[in-house]
């Protein structure tokens, strides 16, 4: 379906004239019609365009035709939003996509190397990284991440159907308390998600401020940071995966 660039009325592809305002339309798709017919049609269109232009030149002072109810401008075919950006790990080959048009405008990339990419959102970090699984499953790797880096974190719940790029994995939300340089402490939430495929573990972790939210779909992770990274998690692909 196409729309008349003059008045916006829909027309069937291949139509020569708008059924609404009678303006000439685009050339229809080239088909197996004979050269003569194409030539005749072309001449006819040219004739109509010239006549239309002449009519317009001669119509000064004459009321312009009104498109019912409002004239629509010509269509713009490019998407209004830029496409997502892509990160591919040079070392491990996993990829992910992120869009700077939404929340990530207020986060800054602070780690980007051959293994990892990470953001800082108002002081709170979230990271993607990878390593060889070496026979460990996603849960074992997630547990090891927690024990090694956040040993005093206490589990709040296991994330149902945790996954990266629709590859099943393991994820957990933890309660943690962070100490600042001034001795002040704040309650925070640690989120870890790991998925393993082809012996490659893609790992995600984030630490965000604990904050209960009153919205239609409040995340039980209880940190607004999830809004920053949630969409990215679904875009992760492993080397040689078909695109999602």
């Amino acid at each position, binding site marked *: *379906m196409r729309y008349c660039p003059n008045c916006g009325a829909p027309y069937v592809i291949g139509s020569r004239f708008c059924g609404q305002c009678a303006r000439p339309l685009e050339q229809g798709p080239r088909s197996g019609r004979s050269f003569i017919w194409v030539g005749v049609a072309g001449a006819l269109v040219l004739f109509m365009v010239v006549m239309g232009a002449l009519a317009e030149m001669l119509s000064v002072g004459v009321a312009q035709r009104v498109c019912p109810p409002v004239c629509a401008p010509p269509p713009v075919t490019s998407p*209004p939003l830029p496409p997502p950006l892509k990160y591919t790990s040079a070392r491990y080959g996993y990829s992910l996509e992120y869009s700077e*048009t939404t929340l990530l405008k207020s986060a800054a990339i602070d780690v980007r190397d051959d293994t990892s990419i990470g953001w800082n959102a108002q002081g709170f970090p979230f990271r993607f990284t990878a390593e060889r699984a070496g026979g460990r499953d996603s849960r074992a790797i997630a547990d090891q*991440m927690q024990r*090694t880096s956040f040993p005093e974190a206490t589990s709040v719940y296991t994330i*149902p159907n945790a996954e990266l790029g629709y590859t099943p994995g393991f994820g957990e939300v933890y309660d*943690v308390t962070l100490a600042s340089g*001034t001795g002040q402490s704040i*309650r925070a939430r640690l989120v870890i998600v790991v998925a393993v495929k082809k012996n490659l573990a893609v790992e995600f972790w984030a630490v965000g401020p604990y904050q209960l939210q009153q919205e*239609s779909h409040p995340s039980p992770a209880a940190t607004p940071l999830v809004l920053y990274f949630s969409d990215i998690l679904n875009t992760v692909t492993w080397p040689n995966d078909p695109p999602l």
Partner: protein
Amino acid sequence: MAGAGSERSRLSSTMKHRAAKLRIQLVTLACATSLFCGNSCFSVTSSLSTPPDAFQALIAGSRDLGPTPPTQTVSLLLTLKDASRARLESDLAAIYDPRSPMHLHFKRAEQAQAEYGPDSIAVSNASSHLKRRGLAVDWTRGNGWMTVTGTAHAVEAEFGVQIHDYVTPAAVRFWASRLPPTVPPELTAVVSGSARLTSYVPVQKNAVPGGGLKPDDLARAYDLEPLRALGNVGSGARVVFLEVDGWAQSDLNTFTQRFGLPPMHPSEKAAQVLPPVSGEAEMDLEVVHALAPAAELVTYTISLDGVTTKTDFFSRWLRVQDQMIAENPGAVISISLGFCEDWAGQQVAEAFKTSFEKAAAMGETVFVSTGDSGGFECLAYAPPGTAPTADYVAGLMPAMTPSVTAVGGTRLSVREDMSWYAEYGWEAPVRTVGTGGNVSRYFQRPDWQRGNGVDNQFNPNRMRSVPDVSADADAASGAAVFLNGQWTQGGGTSQSAPIWAGVTVLVDDYLKSKGLKPVGFFNPLLYAIFDGKPPYPAFHDVVQGGNLVYPATPGYDLATGIGTPIAWNLARDIELYERQH
């Protein structure tokens, strides 16, 4: 706040350094300051270990402040016995049975109004009784429900309840009766039951804001182009939306001008003044207009302004819904709103079922989104921060109603030419967000719900299961829409329901061009084609992803239903089906 900001800055700097090394020092759990918690820091005073339903979970997670003052005005919603129900259901069975001489003989609006509904004399007697007890009654002829309003003292005396004030951990105050109201003997002849008595009013708008598929892309992905090339663009069709927020003509103009679509000028039929724009109504309108640009668009907006009780909430909703159904025979209806099935309770669920059965009798096609909390549709009713456990696994009303087509959500991938490539059951586990889908607690499985996968291990009692169908709902793969002054990507099952509405308008247009009837209540036809051996594959079977609780599997599943539309094939299958029957 300046102090908070600088403190936060120092903290951030420290955190960045430590986090970079994946070493963050932990100290004892505390919520000592309000800098990061605001008013939300709290301790849950009651156990939430095994809430039997969403309502009890709310009560258990809130603090009891004692009896509500006796002069406080409270209200409750009563559902009414209706002797015409059996006739309505048998009429529906005949209208949607291809072997019946009444097949697709839809009722006119005035017929439906005259033939169906509770006995008005009996309701009048009940009203008189209640008025003598100092209670006010609000009932519209034909409706299967009424509201009763009075002081807490009068309602407690008449319905045997104790109403208390409560406050949630997030400081929301409400009143409620822990036990359900008891119907007094004087009313049992006409009253079938009562909704829960509370002022707590949550409502879920099924939208996920995000960052797009252009209108033509969406049409190509679901194979609508052949239909549109034949001139099926929705001329003469009407699509009706039930909304709770408003729309701005300037936003709709920006959308249509950007894509060179014909202008759209929806009309509002219920609210005197449109509520503020939040994006829900605009997404509904733009998505349908993108697919069916010649269809007339009409909104019926429920005003939630000043809603103070659950009764008020349900009665306003049902009143506008009943008006919408009565005024639009033959229309396609799209609803992207809902509330947890537990929360509704069986009596309210039945009132919604009857309301939509009248829509089916009048040949209306109703699509309702299944929600965006995955299988955990009751989690939004628990105190914030509650972990997603089996206690909160439930479906969303009114999508669970057997007389609507429930629409779930997917993540859609397209090829470079924008043709369909792949789909996944939409889920975002870290947010506990995804396509709703579940087994009903109240409704038995209708006869028409059949086909590969409908019988499954999650539904041993053969109850109604949703979704019926699905479509794109992931904000990461959503349609480009202009909402509330900015471009964004549509998402949520709020997007998938209007996609199906747009598809159906074009399918109806095609059928009418062939001298055939529009689809009306779609489910008997959808499942007949799904379960049959149609010449053209009509659905993309989604077999990956899930909804946090249930996986997408071959055939029917509780995450994506039958699947997503291949519109041109579906239209031709229906054409053949109608000709053969």
